[in-house]
């Protein structure tokens, strides 16, 4: 043992000295996937995460249950329509999301904090930005992922209704028109809800608090608006009813689709905004979406450092 010589004890020639430290690491010279790829990955992972795919079984339960709850009434309605050979579906395409707003609210409240709060809490946001993505990429990917997830949960029941309506041999053009209008309306709703949900949950790193805050904003604003509308309607000032609807997300969507997408208003008194007023509603909805995007950008410029 004692006679064993280690390489270090051999007086090495000057050129070979560097070889001690060279343990064979090689630099990467293959293709680099770049910014667009990173953004796409972030989008698809966030979208999968919104339904618990690729996460633990426990976290799949809630989104899947909400998805099933969202689709079940549509399936039942279709079954009833086919069985009774009714002339039309029990609910309009545009009204479905309004009726099921509690489920949509719970979904966005549970999944929006999931998408952003954990990155904030574990301080992993700067790690994302050590990749070749920028603030805008992160915000856009998360925004698009949550909006897509919401679009899935709101559009699939419409597809069920549409297929059922065709199976029940309802008028094709009529149903297609209603279906497409419904799709446009839920697309707008998805963007709006995703924006609001993300802005609120990006503020707090605490998941539970984010959930409560999102649901509070959605329900309390709806509760307040519908209370005020009911009172305005009962007091005979019916012209004020649509304008009050501007102040909560779901009534905002209701107003837009009443004005442009042939929906019947769920407002008390059934009087929605006219086309002229509808422009204000549409601008308000788009403004809120853009505002949410701006706020998210501002927030992530700060926490991304």
């Amino acid at each position, binding site marked *: 043992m004692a006679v064993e010589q280690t390489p270090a004890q051999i007086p090495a020639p000057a050129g070979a000295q560097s070889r001690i430290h060279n343990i064979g690491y090689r630099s990467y010279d293959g293709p680099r996937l770049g910014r667009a790829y990173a953004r796409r990955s972030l989008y698809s992972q966030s979208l999968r995460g919104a339904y618990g795919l690729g*996460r*633990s079984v*426990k*976290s799949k339960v*809630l989104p899947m249950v909400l998805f099933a709850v969202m689709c079940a009434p549509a399936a039942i309605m279709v079954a009833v329509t086919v069985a009774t050979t009714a002339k039309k579906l029990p609910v309009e395409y545009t009204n479905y999301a309004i009726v099921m707003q*509690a489920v949509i609210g*719970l979904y966005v*409240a*549970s999944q929006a904090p999931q998408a952003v709060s*954990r990155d904030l*809490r*574990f301080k992993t946001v700067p790690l994302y930005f050590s990749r070749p993505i920028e603030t805008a990429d992160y915000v856009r990917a998360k925004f698009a992922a949550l909006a897509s997830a919401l679009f899935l949960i709101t559009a699939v029941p419409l597809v069920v209704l549409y297929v059922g309506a065709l199976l029940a041999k309802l008028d094709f053009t009529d149903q297609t028109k209603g279906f497409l209008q419904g799709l446009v309306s839920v697309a707008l709703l998805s963007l709006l809800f995703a924006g609001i949900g993300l802005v609120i949950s990006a503020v707090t790193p*605490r*998941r*539970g*608090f984010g*959930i*409560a*805050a999102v*649901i*509070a904003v959605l*329900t*309390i604003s709806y*509760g*307040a608006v519908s*209370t*005020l509308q*009911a*009172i*305005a309607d009962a*007091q005979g*000032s019916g012209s004020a009813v649509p304008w009050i609807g501007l102040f909560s997300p779901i009534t905002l969507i209701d107003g837009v689709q009443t004005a442009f997408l042939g929906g019947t208003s769920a407002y008390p008194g059934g009087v929605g905004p006219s086309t002229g007023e509808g422009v204000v509603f549409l601008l308000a909805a788009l403004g809120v979406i853009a505002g949410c995007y701006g706020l998210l950008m501002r927030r992530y410029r700060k926490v991304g450092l």
Partner: protein
Amino acid sequence: MYDPTVARLTYRALLGRRRALILGALPLLLIVIAVAVRGLVGADDQTAADVLGGLALATMVPIIGVIAGTGAIGPEIDDGSVIYLLAKPLKRPTIIFTKLIVAIGVTMAFSAVPTFIAGLILNGNGQQVAVAYTVAALVASIAYAALFLLLGTVSRHAVVFGLVYALVWEALFGSLVAGARTLSVQQWALAVGHKVTDGDLVTSDVSLPTATVLLIVVTVLATWFAGQKLRTLTPTGDE
């Protein structure tokens, strides 16, 4: 049974930093609406009862209850820092009881007080409407806080389940299925509120003895079970 240090820490967790402002936004909104309604309608007892019943007791009290009840223990279990609390020589039921007291206090402060103020603004406590709903909110605060504190120790999705109970069970099923109303904190609280004022505007589907018994049973059972749950808590990482 009551530990001031735990209480102080819980208060800080619930109301620290900007959280108190967010919690305060809800009651503020209620008062703003009350002012708006008073401006639109004038003092009307029926409207006052509708606003207080529909907005304050049915929506605001449960939401504040969920935030305070689950917020008192949920985040600590979620991020694992509850270990440092459990490692102290304190009885687990003591921790739960202290957190319950704090949660009740916060829920009452942020829901019952604004309910009373809104009631005064709406109709100046005509027919005792404001007092009735304030009493109902106070009673409901206790039961909600205990119930949601239990949820916080049982599940990591406590907030969602709490909200499902408060909004889907009480609001949706309660309005469709009469039987669901017997099992609703809101109706029990209304029964107590009804008894206090003897008015016709505040009514409940549950008789007072049933309501009182159920309220006490639910509160005590939930607190006891939460204490038991905390004794056997297995701390898990975040997925």
